């Protein structure tokens, strides 16, 4: 068993055109998906991230408004999921509702100290 970091990008481009009803429906899918992971004890941690941020360069001499060229590259949130291997982690990510709105999930294994 290893832990995997899921980074969610994009998927919000069309949100402003959604009706309140559709937004609620989409939100509930996220809740249901994460609830499912929690139930199977695969969910370790996770939080949403604010849209804007800064990137600090050279000990703070240069601070920019984030590395994001466009909205689709903004990381909107992360999860830490426990899975057997990369392949399983990818399998889990396939159920993510982010794909409904053209977003993507980056799946990265978190390295363990006992290698």
């Amino acid at each position, binding site marked *: 068993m290893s832990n995997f970091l899921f980074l969610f990008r994009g998927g919000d481009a069309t*949100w402003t055109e959604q*009706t309140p009803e559709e937004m*609620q429906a989409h*939100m*509930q899918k*996220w*809740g249901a998906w994460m*609830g499912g992971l929690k139930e199977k004890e695969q969910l370790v941690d*996770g939080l949403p991230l604010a849209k804007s941020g800064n990137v600090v360069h050279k000990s703070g001499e240069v601070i920019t408004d984030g590395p994001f060229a466009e909205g689709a590259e903004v990381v*909107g949130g992360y999860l830490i999921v426990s899975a057997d291997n990369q392949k399983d982690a990818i399998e889990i990510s396939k159920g993510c509702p982010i794909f409904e709105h053209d977003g993507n999930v980056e799946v990265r294994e978190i390295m363990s100290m006992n290698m």
Partner: protein
Amino acid sequence: MEETKNEQLVEHVFRHGYGKIVSFLVHKFGPTHLERIEDAVQEALLKAMQVWGYETPPKNPTSWLLRVANNHLIDTLRRDKKVVQSYDASIFNTERSAQEEVCLNESINDSQLKMIFACCHPSLSQEYQIVLSLKLIGGFGNREIAMALFKKEETIAKSFTRAKKRLKAHVKTLDIPLELALRSRLAIVLKIIYLLFSEGYSTSFGETLIKKDICLEAIRLALLLSQNKYSNQPEVHALLALMCLHTARFEARVDQKGNMVDLEHQDRSLYNQDLIKIGIHHLEKAAVDSEPSNYHLQAAISYYHCTAGNFEKTDWKSILRLYKLQLSKQYSPIVQLNSIVPYYKIHGAQKALGVLHDFEKSDYFLKNALFYGIKSTLLLDLNLTKESKLALQMAISLTTNTKEKLYLSEKLKTMG
């Protein structure tokens, strides 16, 4: 850790929240800031969508959304260097006693009520009044309204933009009109609620699920009116009764294939008994000493249909009397035409056909599908199959409603 899963969030909490918060903020900051307010509420919903998926949704989602939208609005107003009126910040505290919660709810209801009167302002056209009510109070999206009203999404969007402009030009603050003005404004408000309801109830076109939501929204608006001491008038209860008694039959009107089922063949076990009870309750509360409104009479007709064990057992005499009352108040060809059905049930097909024959003098009826539909039924009852089929064919060619066309064509087929 066990918690309220967010699947348990109340249905339509976003949609209703949208309407509630827009009204609340427009009441507080004035209609001038309508667009900014809409953006702020949209922003709050977006934030909720991002955050609530990860965490337990708040116990009172509406006040959470209200707080976020309010903060966002104040930020944009400051940024745009608009004067921010002082307001009572205590309602936005996260920790609220139960009593404060009640106050906030009352305040939201009060602003929604005022918003209804604003959206039904006499300077606005009926089209604008409907679209404003659906968007700003109901929280429906352009797409949903377009689907329900069978219009293009852009058409709804354009109409909404124009309606907002007019609203802002004519309504400076949200108020409930007083006394005499209230009576005449209430009449418009009730008419708009009735129209909203009719749009939702008609089977002619549109997405059924959303249409039912529109019916329920119309009921909700009328309930809000009935809860306010000034607008709590007998007509409000009459309209509520009418809408509940109609909605009780909502599911029975179409079969599983989505085809129309007429009153005679409806499965009456599908009638929603709870709604019938609520309808009767409001009908009782609507009692007046004299001059029942049209809503009263229509509600009473609906009452007889809802409570009849089957089609044949319907109290046709009472229904005919109600139609006659309606006609004596104000003549309407469509009411007159509808009154033929109870007349036929009481006096038989031959006599009814005689009455119908008199109608043929009017051009109105010669272009009316229902006229030929009824005529066909009467002729069939008299075993005049050939004539009946001819009338039915006329009805089919005259109706623009595709579901009705299909229903009538099926009927024609069964006649062989």
